[in-house]
Structures are given as structure tokens and as C-alpha cells.
């Protein structure tokens, strides 16, 4: 028999110590879990709940207890924020202390917590159940702590892809800046597909500009034109000289008939009058005022050669096929007067005599200039035949917000390592991040750069399910054909007007339904002599000097093609009794606050004095029923008018300034002339 072994005393002691230790660790873990931050918060919430709700509501309310979470399998997210944020979607807790307070605004109506969780918008670590680890503030090793409100609209941009996102104005502003600054010329940016940005074609640059102007421009475009869209490429003096020689050697087309112009007979007063009549300032700014579609003309006299300007005003599309500028129908004398006025009025001093275009040729400089042109990607914005476009020079910005912040450089900015800060520093100082950059300096203000950052910071490499993406599909490109197409091209209607989703947005209503909106005869008269329909609008339709035949062609086409049967076939009675009732409603609703009728009324909306000759009844009724459906950002409020009110107002408006033979309107058309 073996004697039972007795463990030595030391083993007993070790066992005892281990046992106690185990108990201690166990209790520590247990007690720690029992006293966890979220349990304390829930206990606090129960006390507040009792003070906010009455006993009946308390009995109805779901019991609070344990970890609560929202699981979004399609986004791969688990958010436990509601474990502590217990009153987040209950309006009773508006005044409760955090973390129990109700969510501000109406955001949770459109984005319910069950469907969107919290971190989709706010970022942070959704799985954590204590304040610190949820990354309410930046903590080490967490790439995306919660966003402060200042930049939160970046998150909107992850799902909302449309350029204009009304409830996220900062995001929209950033996207507009991206479009206006031409970022899309050099970078592929998700959400901006199909958008283009271009500067003038340079094929005949040698005939166009003065050499000294070109040098100053290449050194720093903003010094010549504070609102220049071209960035500063930080070129070295020899690069400037090379580019200048290369560009001046571009002489594809000599200007039209420059030598035959009799400058001595130029009348600058007539030119000045023409400058106003043609509404040049709708697109071109002078002395800081005017449109931005075309270049500012304040110093155009320092920039361009006389002969080129004459040729350009005669036919802008010959030299610049892609320009937004229309081709006016002007006489040779008018063109000469206008050119003389521009060159004399808008210059900084006596620019000196023009040198002959042929005197700038230096083969070595031209070759080096060509190299610079290609290396710096000038072709991204400026067309030049003979230079092929190898693709976008800048990297794609898809997933720019996903890059590991600690792998990026921040130069000397001392910025916290986040992809936001990287984008911001890069925008302001492309060269300031340690390595030389090809990107030009655009001269953004800090606020502009930060706004663009907000727009770019939502560009995650998208594994977003399609059901989450909110985006307007872009329409197929529209190109009118035939004689109408020729006129649209000549007068560049689509620079300002939109048809089928294509075109600019300087004008009021898209032209898709213009034939159902305007009467044919009015359209012809208007095209021949466009006046101001809305007094307060600065950008006006130019006086094209088009022929009556052209005006009729456009009006015929519009009245046949750009129509909407649901508007034209609307049953609108236009009789005297309706009109009288409409006049009363017009007064009661205060329409005169914005619209002129006769001599009375406001400047905001169109003058309605001649509506009976201008608009079609079906359009008025459609417009009054839901203005925003015809033009989303119109300032005309939707009054929620009843159908009888709409009919009455339509009848009244059709009676204003109507002529007996008005087409379209049935019944007698002039019951109550404006009083």
C-alpha cells in the first residue's frame, strides 16, 4: 500500500493564494460589469423617465434593460448607441440631459434609427457601450471618431449623390465648388460623371493674345483676373517662357478679314450702347459685376489682339467651337464699334502697339513649352489639336476618404491624422505635403477648402447596396437636329436653358414644356426683342438680332414639340364670372406683393400685366397647382389652392392684357381689365 501523499505545505499555500486570486479576479470582472457605464446610464434614465412620463405611459413604455442594438446587415454595422441614448426618438425627452435627449430636427423621421442606425451619419464606434470607446472624441487607433456637426454633412454625401442635396447645404456648396473649379477635368470623381469643364481652345492662341499678357497670365492667372478659374501652376521662369513660345506658335486659323476694317470710323459710343443691348454682362463681369459664364472683361484690352477680337465677335464658333457664347447677327460696323469700345474701355492703361504674331518663334523654347504643356496636363481643360489626351492627369478620387490616415503626409501643418485634414491641406497647398505636386494652387479660402473637403470626405469606396443610394439618374445627352438644331447651336440656347435635362440653369423654367407655357405669337415677339419678364433679374436674355424667319422657326418648333398634353388639355374655363372671382382671390392671397399688374405690384415674380397675351391657360393652372413640380427651386410658393380657386385665378390672369383673337383660350377673354 502506498502511503497517501500529502502535498507539501507550499503547494497548499499556492493553491490558497490562487483560489483567492481567482475569486478576486472573478469578483472584479463581475462587479465591473455590474457597475458598467451603460448600466449606470440606464438606471439614471429610469429615474428621468419617471419624471417625464405619467404612470400610464410608463406602463405602456417598453422596459429598458440590457444592451440595445441596431443591426444593419447590408451595411455591416452594429450600433449599440441606443443602449445609453434611450430617449433619442421620443419627443418627450427634448429637455432631458444627454445622453437621453431627443434627436434634434426631423432627421429621425426621414432616417429612422431602426433603418439607419447612428454611425452611418455620425461615425464613431457603434459597438462600444461606453463614452470613450464609442469615440465621441478622437482616440488613438480609431480612424473614424464621431464627426462634429461642422463636417457631418460629409456623411450625407455617402448615400446622397445628387449635386444639390437641399437638406445638406454645406455638402451642396462643396459640390458646386468642385464643379465650378473644374476638378472634374483632372480627376474622376464618383457622382460627377459626365460633367465637363473646359477653358478656351488654344489652336489659334498666337493670333489671339498679346505676348506680355500671356506671360503675366501664366505666372499667376489670379493677378490678371481675380476671378480666374485657372489655378496657379507655380511655373518656373523658363517654363513660363517655353509655354509662352509654344502657345504663341499655335496659329491654326488667321482671324477673319482683320486688315479690311476701317478703325478710323469706329464709334465707341455706339459700341457702348451695343454692349448694353446685347446684355453682355449677363455672362461677362466688368469691374466686379456681372455673370460668371464667360471670362471677366475688365482688362480684355490688355489681353487680346484687335483683329482676333473682330473675328471672334463676328463668329465666336469658328475659333472656339465649344464656347458657350452665342453668335449674334451683327453688321460689320456693329462688330467694329463693339470691338473698339471693348478695347478702349476695358484696359489698364496704354498697352502699347501690337507686335506682329509672326515674330515669336524659337524652336527649342517651343519644344520645351510643348513638354510643359503635356507634363502639367494643360490639355485637361484646353483643347489643342496635335496634343492627344492620354486620360485624366490626376488620380481618381474614388475612395479618397478610405485611405489610411496614418499613411498620408501632412507637411508642416501639425494636423491630426485624418483623411479630412489631408484633403484640406492638399487643396490649400498642393506642394506643402513633402513631395512636389502637379496640382495647381487654386487660391481657395480656408472656408472654401473646408467646404470642398466636406464634399469629398463622403467618397468612400462604395460597397453601399444600391437600395441605399439616393441619386438622380443622369439623362441621355440631348442634341436638337435640323434647322431648329442649327439655330439652337448658333444662339447657344443650351448655355442658359435646359431641355430634356441638358443645358445650363441660368434661365427660369426648362424649355421641355415651353410650347404649353407660352403662346406662339408672344414667343415670336419675345425672341425678336426679349424684354425683362422679371424686373429684378440681372441676367437677361440677349437681344440676338435674329431674323423674323428664325424667330418663327423656333416658335413653330417649340409649339409643336415642347408641349405637354396634360397641360394643354386641361379643362380651364375662362369666362367673366370666373375671372371676377379670380380677381378677388388674387387680392386676398396678396399676389400683388410679388407680381406687377399695371403700375402696381412687386418686383419678385414676372409682371402679369400682359399674361393674357403671354401664357396659355393650361399652364397657369398647372403652375398654380404645384409650382415646384415645374421648377423645383422657384420662389413662387405652393399655396395649396383648391381646384375652383385655380380655375378662377387662371381665368383672371388670362383676362389681363388679352387681345380678342388670342389663340387657345375659349370664351370671351376680357372680363375684368386691371383696375
Amino acid at each position, binding site marked *: 500500500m502506498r502511503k497517501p501523499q500529502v502535498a507539501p505545505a507550499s503547494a497548499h499555500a499556492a493553491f490558497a493564494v490562487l483560489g483567492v486570486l481567482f475569486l478576486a479576479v472573478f469578483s472584479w470582472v463581475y462587479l465591473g460589469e455590474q457597475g458598467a457605464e451603460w448600466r449606470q446610464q440606464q438606471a439614471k434614465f429610469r429615474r428621468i423617465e419617471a419624471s417625464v412620463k405619467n404612470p400610464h405611459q410608463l406602463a405602456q413604455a417598453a422596459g429598458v434593460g440590457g444592451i440595445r442594438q441596431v443591426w444593419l446587415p447590408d451595411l455591416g454595422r452594429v450600433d449599440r448607441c441606443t443602449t445609453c441614448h434611450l430617449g433619442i426618438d421620443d419627443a418627450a425627452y427634448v429637455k432631458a440631459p444627454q445622453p437621453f435627449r431627443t434627436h*434634434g*430636427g*426631423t*432627421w429621425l*423621421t*426621414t432616417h429612422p434609427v431602426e433603418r439607419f442606425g447612428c454611425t452611418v451619419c455620425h461615425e464613431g464606434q457603434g459597438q462600444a457601450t461606453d463614452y470613450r470607446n464609442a469615440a465621441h472624441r478622437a482616440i488613438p487607433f480609431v480612424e473614424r471618431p464621431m464627426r*462634429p*456637426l*461642422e*463636417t457631418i454633412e460629409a456623411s450625407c454625401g455617402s448615400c446622397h449623390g445628387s449635386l444639390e442635396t*437641399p*437638406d445638406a*447645404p*454645406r455638402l451642396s456648396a462643396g459640390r458646386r465648388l468642385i464643379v465650378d473649379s473644374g476638378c472634374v477635368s483632372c480627376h474622376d470623381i464618383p457622382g460627377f460623371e459626365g460633367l465637363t469643364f473646359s477653358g478656351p481652345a488654344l489652336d489659334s492662341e498666337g493670333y489671339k493674345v498679346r505676348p506680355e499678357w500671356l506671360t503675366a497670365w501664366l505666372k499667376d492667372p489670379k493677378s490678371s483676373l481675380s476671378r480666374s478659374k485657372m489655378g496657379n501652376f507655380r511655373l518656373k521662369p523658363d517654363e513660363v517662357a517655353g509655354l509662352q513660345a509654344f502657345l504663341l506658335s499655335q496659329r491654326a486659323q488667321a482671324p477673319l478679314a482683320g486688315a479690311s476694317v476701317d478703325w478710323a470710323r469706329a464709334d465707341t459710343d455706339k459700341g457702348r450702347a451695343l454692349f448694353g443691348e446685347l446684355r453682355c454682362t449677363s455672362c461677362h463681369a466688368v469691374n466686379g459685376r456681372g455673370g460668371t459664364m464667360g471670362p471677366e472683361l475688365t482688362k480684355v484690352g490688355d489681353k487680346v489682339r484687335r483683329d482676333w477680337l473682330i473675328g471672334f465677335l463676328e463668329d465666336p464658333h469658328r475659333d472656339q467651337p465649344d464656347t458657350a457664347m452665342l453668335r449674334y447677327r451683327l453688321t460689320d460696323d456693329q462688330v467694329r464699334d463693339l470691338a473698339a469700345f471693348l478695347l478702349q474701355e476695358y484696359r489698364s492703361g496704354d498697352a502699347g502697339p501690337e507686335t506682329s504674331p509672326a515674330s515669336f518663334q524659337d524652336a527649342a523654347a517651343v519644344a520645351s513649352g510643348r513638354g510643359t504643356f503635356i507634363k502639367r496636363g494643360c490639355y485637361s481643360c484646353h483643347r489643342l489639336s496635335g496634343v492627344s489626351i492620354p486620360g485624366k492627369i490626376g488620380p481618381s478620387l474614388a475612395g479618397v476618404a478610405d485611405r489610411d490616415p496614418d499613411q498620408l503626409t501632412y507637411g508642416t*501643418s*501639425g*494636423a*491630426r*491624422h485624418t483623411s*479630412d*485634414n489631408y484633403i*484640406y*491641406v492638399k487643396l490649400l497647398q498642393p506642394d506643402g505635403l513633402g513631395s512636389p505636386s502637379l496640382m495647381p494652387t487654386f487660391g481657395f479660402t*480656408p*472656408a472654401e*477648402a*473646408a*467646404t470642398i*473637403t*466636406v464634399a469629398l470626405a463622403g467618397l468612400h469606396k462604395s460597397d453601399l447596396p444600391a437600395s441605399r443610394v439616393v441619386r438622380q439618374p443622369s439623362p441621355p445627352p440631348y442634341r436638337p437636329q435640323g434647322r431648329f438644331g442649327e439655330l439652337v447651336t448658333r444662339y447657344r440656347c443650351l448655355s442658359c436653358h435646359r431641355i430634356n435635362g441638358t443645358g445650363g440653369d441660368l434661365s427660369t423654367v426648362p424649355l421641355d414644356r415651353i410650347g404649353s407655357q407660352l403662346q406662339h405669337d408672344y414667343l415670336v415677339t419675345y425672341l425678336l426683342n426679349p424684354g425683362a419678364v422679371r424686373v*429684378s433679374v440681372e441676367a437677361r436674355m440677349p437681344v440676338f438680332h435674329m431674323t423674323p424667319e428664325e424667330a418663327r422657326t423656333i416658335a413653330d418648333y417649340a409649339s409643336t414639340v415642347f408641349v405637354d398634353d396634360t397641360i394643354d388639355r386641361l379643362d380651364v374655363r375662362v369666362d367673366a364670372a370666373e375671372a371676377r372671382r379670380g380677381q378677388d382671390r388674387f387680392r*386676398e*392671397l*396678396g399676389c400683388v*406683393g*410679388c407680381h406687377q399688374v399695371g403700375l402696381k*405690384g*412687386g*418686383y*419678385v415674380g414676372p409682371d402679369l400685366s400682359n399674361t393674357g397675351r403671354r401664357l396659355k391657360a393650361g399652364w397657369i393652372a398647372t403652375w398654380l397647382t404645384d*409650382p*415646384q413640380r415645374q421648377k423645383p*427651386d422657384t*420662389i413662387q*410658393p*405652393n*399655396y*395649396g389652392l383648391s381646384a375652383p380657386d385655380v380655375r378662377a385665378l387662371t381665368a383672371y390672369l388670362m383676362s389681363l392684357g388679352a387681345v380678342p383673337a388670342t389663340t387657345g383660350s375659349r370664351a370671351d377673354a376680357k372680363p375684368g381689365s386691371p383696375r
Partner: protein
Amino acid sequence: MRNARRVVVLLALCAVAACRRPSPPAAEPVIDALKAEEREVGLTYAESLGRPVFAHYCATCHGDAGKGDGQNASNLTPPPPDFTASKVMADAGYVRRVIVEGSAALGRSPLSPPWGRTLTPQQVDYLILYCQALAKKK
């Protein structure tokens, strides 16, 4: 002995590391730039969201600062009041009714139209905050 010396050196290094000044908090240029912009116009983020809405729909009559001096104000009888001087601005519920239902619904002139079907509830929220901020700023 050598070990002891090593330990001492190690401890000394640790002490030096511990004494090193904590690195200054890293800069947040993006947030700073946006906050600076807000400070410049004297608005918080939520208030600033109402500014574009006000500029687009309201300023033409009420004026850029809400003083009732918009370019269209002279065409209105009664003219728009200087709402920055008005006590009702403190009552968000009243301001909401004026915006959403129009001034006529509150027994006043019909010249301030109802915007409830045109603006989203969110835009109305922003607008109220912005108008109240204008009133506070004076």
C-alpha cells in the same frame, strides 16, 4: 552588479520618457476653418443652415438682415416689419406658424405667403433658427 546598473539606466530612461512634455493636441484645420466661418457671421452650425433658405426665399422682401429693407419692400403695403426688433421672434411656435401658414392665417396682411407646402420641415427648422439668430444679433 552589471544587471543592477542596467536596471538603473533603464529606469532613468523611463523617467526621462515620462518627463517628456506631452505632445500638443493635434490641429483640426478643417473644423477650425468651418468654425471660423461660422464665427465670422456669428452663427452656429444649425443657424447657418437657414441662411441659404432665407437668402433664396425671404431676403428679397425682408432684407438680408431681416430688417424689412429688401429690394421689394417698397412695393408692399404694409411693408415687411423689422423682425429683428420684434418680440415674437422668441416664440418659435409663432414664427413657425407665420412661415408655414402665412401671415394671413394669423390675421395679418396676406403678403407673406404660406411656405409649408414649398419648404421641407427641415428647411423650416433651419429658417426659424436663422431668423432667431438675426434677431439676437440685431
